[in-house]
């Protein structure tokens, strides 16, 4: 049998990638496979090529029957893959149609997996490593999932090394699975009976809400402490990300880390001004500063006739997708409404509606207008440090006309 054409092709593939190879070595390998092992020549060519590629560290996509073997961070929606990794978390199946769900990880990343009940697949165990052949990558709400169906072959393999994930800066997290090193900077009141704890985690890059649901032996985090959190679910709701820690491995760290000031920006229409906005009275007792009722009553210090006046606006800014609650304090209230504290007091004292008149005038200045603001988010509310009315931008018009007319 003449191998010269095949040798030439294989050699060419190596040479074109900048390496030199002895042609007699290629011929010897081919000959061995075909003549000694009865391998079809096309398959022999493929095998030798792959072997040499590996030897020279050349990476390429080589098709296999069960979908390409891929690392998790290379997965794309809709493809069939073969992959090796570790089951790092299991969570309770949310419906009878699902036999098992959890997180599958390798050194490149991690992905949620779902095993359908009708797949009749063997259940995987946490912390064991598996090779999955012919699993399907599927996208749901912008997040990739790995589907294990009846055609998927599951094989337990030896423990993989070095799959400890890298930390992702909070600001760079995207929906899916993520690992962070972060500090618990706020703990919030639970809003749901099934919720064990919720609050805010922060690192140098940003902050994110976290939630722990009552499920199995989960524990609360300690405010002010730093944790390494591996394989948390990054969920998205109305454009905002949160971390669900129920799947995560949480390790307390004996160190302190730098945390961002937590400023966020948000723009939209001011769609609601809440009662308690406008001119308000605060308790004068040192360190109290609570807002007094109309009868000058502080919930702690009772009647306080020597109250202190202040200005604030509470309300909702709405960009058409999300509505965010705002708290705007005096300086910015004065800037937005053009009414300063002295003027507000004067209006209240010389008007039959009193403080209500200040509310109405401020409402008419702000409600229904487009605002952009920055501030720290505290307990779901943006404490506004900077804000301004947004001006109409005619440059946007040309872009939108193009978009609208693009299909014609």
């Amino acid at each position, binding site marked *: 049998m003449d191998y010269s054409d095949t040798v030439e092709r294989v050699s060419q593939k190596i040479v074109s990638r900048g390496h030199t190879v002895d042609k007699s070595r290629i011929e010897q390998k081919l000959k061995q496979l075909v003549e000694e092992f009865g391998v079809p020549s096309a398959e022999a060519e493929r095998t030798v090529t792959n072997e040499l590629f590996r030897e020279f560290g050349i990476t390429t996509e080589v098709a296999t029957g069960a979908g390409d073997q891929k690392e998790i961070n290379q997965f794309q929606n809709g493809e069939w893959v073969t992959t090796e990794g570790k089951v790092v978390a299991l969570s309770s*199946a*949310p*419906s009878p*149609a*699902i036999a098992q*769900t959890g997180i599958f990880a390798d050194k490149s990343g991690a992905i*949620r997996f*779902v095993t*359908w009940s009708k797949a009749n697949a063997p259940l995987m165990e946490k912390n064991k490593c598996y090779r999955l052949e012919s699993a399907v990558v*599927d996208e*749901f709400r912008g997040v990739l*999932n790995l*589907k294990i169906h009846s055609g998927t072959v599951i094989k337990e393999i030896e423990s993989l090394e070095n799959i400890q994930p890298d930390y992702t800066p909070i600001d760079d997290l995207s929906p899916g699975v993520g690992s962070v090193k972060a500090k618990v900077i706020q703990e919030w009141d639970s*809003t*749901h009976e*099934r919720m064990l704890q919720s609050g805010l985690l922060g690192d140098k890059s940003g902050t994110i809400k976290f*939630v722990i*649901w009552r*499920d199995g032996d989960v524990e609360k985090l300690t405010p002010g402490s730093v944790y390494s959190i591996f394989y948390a*679910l990054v*969920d998205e*709701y*109305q454009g905002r990300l*949160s971390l*669900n820690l*129920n799947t995560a491995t949480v390790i307390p760290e004996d160190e302190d880390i730098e945390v961002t000031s937590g400023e966020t920006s948000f723009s939209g*229409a001011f*769609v*609601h001004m809440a009662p308690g906005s406008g001119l308000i009275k605060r308790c004068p007792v040192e360190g109290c500063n609570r807002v007094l009722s109309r009868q000058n009553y502080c919930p702690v210090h009772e009647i306080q006739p020597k109250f202190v006046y202040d200005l604030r606006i509470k309300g*909702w800014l*709405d*960009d*058409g*997708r*999300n*509505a965010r*609650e705002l708290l705007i304090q005096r300086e910015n209230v004065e800037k937005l409404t053009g009414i300063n504290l002295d003027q507000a007091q004067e209006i209240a004292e010389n008007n039959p509606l009193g403080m209500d008149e200040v509310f109405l005038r401020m*409402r*008419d200045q702000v*409600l*229904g*207008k*487009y605002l952009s603001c920055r501030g720290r988010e505290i307990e*779901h509310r943006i404490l506004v440090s900077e804000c301004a009315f*947004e*001006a*109409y*931008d005619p440059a*946007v*018009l040309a872009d*939108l*006309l193009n*978009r*609208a*007319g693009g*299909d*014609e």
Partner: protein
Amino acid sequence: MNEQQPKTAPQKYSFEREPAKRVFAAELRETRIHFKDADDEKSPSYVLLPTGERCNRIFAVGTLTEKRKQGDQNLFYRARVVDPTGTFFVMAGSYQPEAMQQMARIEPPSFVAVVGKPSIYETPDGAFLVSVRCESITVVDKDARDHWVLDTAKATLDRLDLDGQTPDSARARAEYQADPAIFRRMVYDALAQMKI
């Protein structure tokens, strides 16, 4: 894929507020479908916009061209607010005293910003009327109106770009059988009117 998706724990909290969708009058007028996510009274009701998104509340800026006081015991206002594509029929009743007081103080014609809930009535002869129950109405300037036209054009194009890929978008495509090109044209015409 149509198979059931894994659910994570409930994520909706009381501190959240339904966003106010940006929708042109000509699209809102074509809205026919309304629904609730759950049976309990507290769950919000939605209309399904023909371009493919659920909508519990709208924010609209236009010109108040007409307002009429109606009713004897239950006083309410009926108003027309016009945008570049058509007319919003806005109602302010005693169930929203703040909106009614605001309405009382505004004289047409003026630019107004309206926040409200869309509702659909089917008349005995089978016609549909879509109106907006007003939560608030305030006078704004032309800048705010122009800003809203761009904002709403963008939101509408974004919805059209979903192209049946979200459950709401797929449902709207199936239920309304509307040609997306008609809404794209509506957006284009609205924008074209802004050129001076």
